[in-house]
């Protein structure tokens, strides 16, 4: 039998852990220290708990150890033993960052930032070490029940039902998780083992008594058993000696009346919902079957419905790797090509004598299209995946800059191709940071300007035709026309005072342009909007900017829904067909002699109404020899990218079509001025022109 590739489980663990971190982060951001919500704390706790369990199972010890501290703190919060403070939330948020970097390091096999991890874990340790006495009882009703310190250890009797294995559970995993809480002494009861010939291989005959020496709450242990609570008899009680300790804690210890015999399954975990008997002597003297440390809130009872709600929400989806989906998309792409080839072949046939064939082909055409759309939709993710990171970005930055900012997000459910989502995240972050740093004014300035002290940044997404439009707007000061102009002059960029606002705003996309008076670590590092713009253009998108002084600015990003299919114009250059991305095409025309001008450096331009556009002979760029050289004999296609235009000379326009993009880079190598390739209906391979690069080159050559 081949050895098991454990890494295939790793991927799922990492995927789920990163999702868990997102849950923690958004939960922490939602958490209001003045009125902490049990449900939110529980959700954060559960996420941390799952990460810890998984990390332990897969042997990522650093992650497991770190999460353990985090979990302990969260456990104290959710059991009401610790009030939620802003400081705690800050440390927890930083812990989320540390965990993310630890997990990334574990996933990529790279070096983890142990220094930060150590620092944050010391902070967590310090918080945990804070005396419990400083904790106030959260509600007056519980004021008479002093907060209990966790006992030094717990005795756990774990008697699985025979069907426990069949439900996918493994006591090994459970006990391993327990050992993450502390040192465990495990005694296995093998009395019920049958003879090998009589044994049912998937029935559980073993049971365990575990003495766990851990400074944790009962809930932490109960949580380890959360998945098997209905499939085992379980009792968790303090280790001897702990209950007898003469502390006020005993008042909070509840012994449930049971003779120490069998216990109804799950009874232990449900116990907190029954009224606790305030009977310290029973706890101290007898042998309490079950003990609950109560800190003021029915923590476990509150956590149960949440768990079931979470579970019920999981039913509708399965996790599929992107490679599988990409393979599927690729296959559908092939199918589209085959279908187009069939269609093309059939064109030579007589439609009357081949009517049935034509009907069949039409049906194939329709079905292929529907299939293609359906498959593409599996790659679509709500833009929420990107938007969800911004509450954190805004919160951290606003507090760093001493600004008051609220973030509004609209249209989070708008769907976008996964690859676009991944690549839009950084540019968007930059825009949001910019808005916060340069756009939104300080509370004093805002108040002086008659605006509310709290600024607003709005992120919205919507579909428009085959595109998605993402808008980042703020109600800040707006762009400063004068400052941009003076900065541009400083950098030697050609400007004039009469420039239209739109043209002035475009200046901020110039490389290295920053108007920040002071270089901060927030923005204004000199790499900025030009990088944003290049990123957006690399996604075949466009970016527009509008601004009104004192009212704020608005940046509009328009992106294609997917990077796998392109609306293209097929053009012929000599004997070759090339595809020009349609969104770069402004117009096409047959130039007249008077429109053509030759410059001193051999370059040619074409006059289009009031402007001169450089002429680029694509045949030279691509080394096609038998193509038209005289612009008047061919067609020029005016391409635009990044605000610049060129006129590309081609022999003929062939038609418009949707093409499936095949990467040339991954199948061959990167070719200058070519962004990819596609297979045409006749089986011929056509190169897709990289309009942005051609425009850049053309403009540069012309300027030279």
């Amino acid at each position, binding site marked *: 039998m081949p050895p098991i590739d454990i890494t295939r489980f790793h991927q799922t663990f990492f995927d789920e852990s990163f999702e868990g971190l997102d849950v923690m982060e958004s939960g922490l951001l939602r958490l209001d220290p003045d009125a902490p919500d049990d449900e939110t704390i529980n959700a954060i706790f559960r996420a941390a708990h799952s990460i810890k369990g998984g990390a332990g199972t897969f042997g990522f010890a650093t992650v497991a150890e770190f999460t353990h501290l985090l979990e302990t703190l969260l456990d104290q919060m959710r059991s009401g033993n610790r009030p939620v403070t802003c400081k705690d939330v800050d440390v927890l948020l930083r812990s989320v960052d540390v965990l993310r970097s630890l997990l990334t390091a574990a996933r990529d096999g790279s070096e983890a930032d142990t220094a930060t991890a150590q620092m944050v874990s010391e902070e967590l340790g310090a918080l945990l070490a804070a005396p419990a006495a400083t904790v106030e009882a959260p509600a007056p009703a519980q004021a008479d029940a002093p907060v209990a310190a966790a006992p030094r250890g717990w005795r756990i009797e774990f008697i699985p039902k025979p069907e426990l294995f069949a439900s996918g559970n493994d006591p090994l995993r459970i006990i391993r998780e327990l050992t993450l809480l502390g040192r465990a002494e495990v005694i296995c009861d*093998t009395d019920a083992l049958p003879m090998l010939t009589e044994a049912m291989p998937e029935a*559980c005959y073993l049971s365990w008594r575990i003495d766990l020496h851990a400074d944790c709450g009962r809930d932490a242990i109960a949580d380890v058993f959360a998945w098997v609570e209905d499939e085992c008899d379980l009792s968790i009680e303090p280790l001897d000696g702990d209950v007898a300790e003469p502390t006020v804690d005993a008042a909070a210890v509840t012994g449930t009346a049971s003779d120490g015999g069998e216990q109804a399954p799950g009874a232990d975990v449900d116990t907190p919902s029954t009224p606790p008997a305030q009977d310290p002597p029973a706890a101290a003297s007898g042998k309490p079957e079950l003990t609950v440390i109560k800190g003021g809130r029915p923590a476990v009872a509150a956590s149960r419905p949440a768990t079931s709600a979470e579970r019920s929400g999981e039913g509708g989806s399965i996790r599929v790797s992107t490679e599988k989906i990409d393979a599927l998309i690729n296959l559908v792409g092939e199918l589209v090509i085959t279908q187009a080839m069939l269609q093309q072949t059939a064109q030579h046939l007589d439609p009357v004598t081949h009517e049935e064939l034509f009907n069949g082909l039409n049906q194939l055409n329709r079905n292929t299209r529907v299939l293609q759309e359906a498959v593409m939709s599996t790659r679509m993710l709500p833009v929420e995946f990107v938007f969800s990171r911004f509450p954190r970005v805004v919160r951290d930055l606003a507090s760093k800059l001493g600004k008051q900012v609220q973030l509004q997000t609209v249209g989070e459910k708008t769907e976008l191709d996964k690859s676009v989502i991944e690549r839009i995240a950084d540019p968007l972050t930059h825009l949001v940071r910019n808005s916060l740093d340069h756009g939104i004014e300080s509370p004093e300035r805002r108040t002086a300007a008659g605006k509310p002290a709290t600024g607003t940044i709005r992120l919205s997404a919507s579909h428009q035709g085959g595109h998605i439009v993402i808008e980042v707007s703020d109600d800040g000061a707006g762009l400063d026309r004068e400052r941009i102009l003076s900065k541009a002059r400083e950098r030697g960029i050609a400007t004039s005072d009469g420039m239209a606002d739109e043209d002035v705003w475009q200046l901020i996309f110039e490389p290295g342009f920053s108007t920040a008076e002071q270089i901060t670590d927030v923005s204004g590092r000199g790499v900025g909007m030009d990088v944003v713009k290049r990123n957006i253009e690399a996604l075949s998108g466009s970016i527009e900017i509008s601004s009104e002084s004192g009212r704020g600015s608005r940046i509009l990003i328009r992106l294609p829904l997917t990077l796998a299919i392109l609306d293209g114009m097929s053009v012929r250059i000599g004997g070759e067909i090339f595809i020009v991305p349609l969104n770069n095409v402004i117009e096409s025309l047959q130039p007249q002699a008077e429109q053509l001008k030759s410059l001193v450096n051999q370059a040619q331009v074409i006059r289009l109404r009031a402007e001169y556009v450089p002429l680029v002979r694509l045949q030279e760029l691509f080394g096609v020899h038998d193509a038209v050289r005289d612009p008047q004999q061919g067609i020029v296609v005016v391409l635009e990218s990044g605000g610049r235009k060129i006129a590309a000379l081609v022999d003929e326009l062939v038609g418009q079509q949707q093409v499936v993009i095949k990467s040339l880079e991954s199948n061959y190598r990167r070719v200058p001025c070519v962004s990819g390739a596609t297979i045409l209906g006749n089986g011929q391979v056509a190169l897709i022109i990289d309009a942005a690069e051609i425009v850049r080159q053309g403009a540069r050559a012309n300027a030279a």
Partner: protein
Amino acid sequence: MSKSPKTATKPAPRRGVLKLPADLGVEHARDFQEKLAGRVEDARTIVLDAREVSRIHTAAIQLLCIFCQDRRNAGRQTQWRQPSDTLRSAASLLGVSTLLELAREGA
């Protein structure tokens, strides 16, 4: 290098080796039980070769416990050969190292 025909007629070795598969997940428990059942009554010393065990479920550990217990009760010998860390740690976590006589097993 031809061997003398006599070598082939030697008495059966006093040891039988049972190689444990790398994957002892619960989904393989039934196969594993059959594999063990084939050897449980083997009068020879059975050597459990566990060097390749890289994934193990409690169900498999339980079967090993039953196997060793049955053999011990019948006065038969069972030994380990290079039990993998996965197996050792699982047995130790489940508190059955002693029953499986893994504890006294060297590296």
